[in-house]
């Protein structure tokens, strides 16, 4: 384990465990993420990758262990509080708001950037109106960043899969996150769409974000990541730069079985 100065660590998980009934979705998972890095989490189906994101973002509470984000212990905090601390995410199954337009979906991401309450909004108080205008600017920025500004007023149902996934990214970006967790971002995308996503990710890192990707697509993961973490049946079996992980015997066995 390399000794890095603590102020460079954005996220640290230690001894993280999560059980669903009798099944250990996560057991004793521990690693650190450096600021400004691109990291990936891979593993066979059912390894616990999405559960990991869900636990870090607060959708599920961990049964054991701790999660430290920007030197603050966030284990056990509710999801909406963790979101306001600067962790944004996308979902494997998009989880977009089907009845809202592209712009409105992105605007929901801006929720933490403002604080106008129900009465202020309903009575159309001047400062609520000003906030709304500001949020629209932020949302438009996110949409322009992913290249969807022309689709702002379209209903979600009109967009193809690739653009819908980008809406999810724009929505997460509107949260002004420090850590962006992407759950299977290139699943189902065509080659040019995946390439566009890679460009976006590099631009985001340039702006100072830390990226954490859960993926199945090996070429995508290996070409992009500085660090790869491998999960199998809930436990971490490898961690390190892509070439190191690729050659790891345990990883190969996990993916291909014992018969290699």
């Amino acid at each position: 384990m390399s000794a890095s100065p603590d102020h460079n660590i954005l996220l640290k998980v230690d001894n993280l465990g999560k059980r669903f009934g009798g099944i250990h979705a996560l057991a004793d998972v521990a690693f650190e993420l450096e600021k400004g890095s691109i990291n990936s989490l891979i593993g066979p189906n059912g390894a616990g990758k999405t559960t990991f994101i869900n636990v870090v973002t607060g959708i599920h509470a961990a049964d054991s262990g701790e999660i430290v984000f920007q030197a603050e212990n966030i284990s056990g905090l509710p999801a909406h509080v963790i979101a306001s601390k600067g962790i944004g995410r996308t979902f494997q199954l998009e989880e977009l708001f089907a009845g809202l337009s592209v712009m409105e979906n992105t605007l929901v991401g801006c929720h933490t950037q403002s604080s106008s309450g129900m009465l202020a909004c309903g009575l159309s108080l001047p400062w609520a109106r000003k906030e709304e205008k500001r949020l629209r600017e932020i949302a438009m920025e996110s949409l322009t960043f992913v290249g969807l500004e022309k689709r702002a007023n379209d209903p979600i149902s009109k967009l193809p899969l690739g653009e819908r996934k980008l809406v999810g990214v724009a929505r997460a970006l509107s949260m002004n996150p420090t850590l962006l967790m992407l759950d299977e971002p290139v699943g189902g995308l065509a080659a040019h769409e995946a390439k566009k996503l890679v460009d976006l990710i590099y631009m985001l890192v340039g702006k100072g974000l830390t990226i954490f990707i859960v993926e199945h697509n090996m070429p995508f993961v290996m070409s992009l990541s500085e660090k790869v973490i491998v999960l199998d049946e809930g436990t971490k079996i490898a961690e390190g730069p892509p070439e190191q992980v690729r050659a790891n015997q345990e990883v190969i066995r996990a993916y291909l079985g014992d018969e290699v």
Partner: protein
Amino acid sequence: MKGHILPGLVMLAIFLLPIIVPSPYIIGVMCFIAIYGALALGKAVLMENSGIFSVAHPAWFGIGAYVTAIATIRGVPPLVSIGVAALCVACLAYIMGAPLLRLKEYYLANATFCLLIIMEIVIGNMGSLTGGHEGLMGIPPLTIGPIKFEGDRDFYFLSWGLCIGSLWFFHNLMNTRAGRALRTFMYSEVASKSMGINVSQYKLRIFVITSVMASLTGSILAFWLRFIEPAMFGIPLMIELLTMVIVGGGGILYGPILGAFTIMWLREVIQAYLARLLPVMTAEVDAVFFGIIVILTLIFMPGGIAGWVEQLMHAGRRVGERLTRP
């Protein structure tokens, strides 16, 4: 600016109606439309926008009416009674809302259904305070300072003021941050939470806000009719509100009010003609006709009348675009 012409015209029409058509009968029906429309609007906001399947609306309406009436009879100034009633309802909704809103979908509908029944029985049994099943009579008139609200015309403006005010409030709400947060609940609460929205807190807030609006509506009813009874606030009302939301179209904000308009005038028309054929015309018999209308609407026009209107306008807009293209 184009979007504001039609609503502006409608509001002008509503404002001018009692002046152009001084018939007390029409004004009376329109008062009911405003009152029930406002209630149906609140219900639709909960059900169609926030994913809260509460059918408890008539309860807040009734409690608001009763507290206002009881307080005013005992000498409390009308404006204060209205405030007290709203406060009572807000507290009740807040206390009951927190545990109740944990229930999902039909569990909540079921529990609030039970609540309605409980409330009706309780009010009916508190005879000395509430007049029991016979109802509460002799409610003093609404006087705010030197102004006395009496007669259908005064309450026409009051009730439509409340109705349009609610519409304006929810229109603002749904297009801004707080309302947008609510609108996400129907699609993905998980994504909602991940965007920083405190789902249970927002649900509780909209629950309390709509309950207070129902209470205010109840206060207006009490001062207008000067008489209230438990039967006005029970299950038949709940079904009627549901009908108005469905027929009018819950997906669009003005839908429930349109639904109230349609249902009430339809009822007047039916009663005028069928009163000759059938000797008994109680709320339950209405239910046959309106049950059929609901069924037909759900099958053939699931978006309700408002949904159909919006489709027409959308098609009209597209035709207009094609015509104006060079």
